[in-house]
């Protein structure tokens, strides 16, 4: 009976720790999933360069090999983008693992098996003793390791916030300003090409109609791609805000208000991922 009250307290401590790390785990795993949508954008600086090179060749009726296109600068741009992406992804993957409650759910069965009931020299062990000690050990271990995890998460969120915000801002800049900017140039190239084609006296009305149709088809593809990037950038914003909220409230990691706020960010990110997935290419 004397063991019951301390056991109840330990259970409550453990539960309190578990619930709040779950919200952080939801946020970090959703952020991780959101960031990884970058791999579904399906466009890069190098791709843009090759497309532009091919388009030039089409305008001049030339046949070129891919390696005749000078895309070195664009490959370097992709390399920078990928490096920043990997750093952000690595951080959120790590935070997801660390905040996963399964991480500190240890299997004490090996100990139970070796401490099975019987006599060991002058020591005799009961089955009920083995089970009781195993349960208490599991609770103590979980409470201790959960406190350790919470402390570590608080420390990592604190140190990571400033550099992470920088990386997220620059990542968004690369995609929304520069990569979308390249797509605006692609639209401009198409505009000029088809405008010139319409001036031609040798094309029939049917051919001109077909050219105009093709122009709008290609324009629609580019607009879709830009919409994808815009939606992805929206998710980067929400991820950044969520981490800032976590940072601002890192000393109140057990508070209900933080739990509710973080849940809202996770939910927003999931909605944006859903919106992203709906865009067909």
């Amino acid at each position: 009976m004397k063991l019951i009250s301390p056991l109840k307290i330990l259970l409550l401590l453990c539960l309190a720790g578990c619930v709040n790390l779950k919200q952080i785990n939801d946020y970090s795993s959703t952020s991780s999933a959101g960031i990884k949508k970058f791999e579904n954008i399906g466009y890069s600086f190098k791709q843009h360069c090759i497309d532009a090179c091919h388009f030039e060749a089409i305008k001049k009726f030339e046949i070129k090999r891919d390696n005749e296109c000078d895309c070195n600068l664009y490959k370097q741009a992709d390399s920078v983008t990928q490096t920043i992406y990997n750093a952000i992804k690595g951080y959120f993957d790590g935070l997801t693992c660390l905040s996963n409650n399964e991480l500190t759910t240890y299997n004490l069965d090996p100990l139970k098996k070796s401490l099975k009931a019987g006599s060991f020299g002058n020591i005799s062990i009961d089955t009920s003793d083995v089970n009781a000690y195993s349960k208490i050990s599991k609770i103590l271990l979980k409470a201790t390791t959960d406190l350790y995890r919470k402390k570590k998460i608080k420390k990592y969120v604190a140190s990571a916030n400033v550099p992470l915000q920088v990386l997220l801002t620059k990542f968004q800049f690369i995609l929304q300003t520069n990569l979308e900017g390249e797509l605006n140039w692609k639209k401009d190239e198409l505009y000029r090409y088809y405008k010139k084609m319409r001036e031609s006296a040798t094309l029939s009305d049917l051919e001109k109609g077909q050219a105009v149709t093709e122009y709008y088809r290609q324009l629609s593809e580019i607009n879709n791609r830009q919409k994808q990037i815009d939606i992805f950038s929206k998710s980067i914003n929400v991820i950044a805000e969520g981490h800032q909220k976590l940072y601002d409230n890192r000393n109140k990691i057990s508070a209900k208000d933080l739990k509710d706020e973080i849940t809202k960010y996770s939910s927003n990110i999931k909605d944006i991922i859903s919106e992203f997935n709906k865009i067909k290419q």
Partner: protein
Amino acid sequence: MENLTSQQAADLGKYFLEINGYIEDFRFDSTIPLSNEQKQQLDDLLDQNSRFGQDILALSTKLIMDDVRESMEKIKNITGEIQSTLKTLKNIQKGINIAASVVTLGAAIISKNPGIITGAIKELVNACKA
């Protein structure tokens, strides 16, 4: 070019696109009739601007590396620390498995049965290697 910041390069790209738009309006929609030679000159200028505008956006991205170098190092270090913490927490399970094997070995030694002792030693070695 190398002294530009990434933001300045991106801004230049945007201005060139705008300028191209005005030149295109003149080229295609002007009420003043243009000779074929004039049209070709404008087309060549537009092509040049277009190449420059696209290249400068790629350069702007490349230049961002200078802006993020320090932040990148910090995030990489923190991610490395997280991996160490994860290893520590995962090693607890390894510790439990090793402890269990040690207890089994202890019981085997007390039993004074060589066959059981050998088996228990093997189990402990496997737990340490895992």
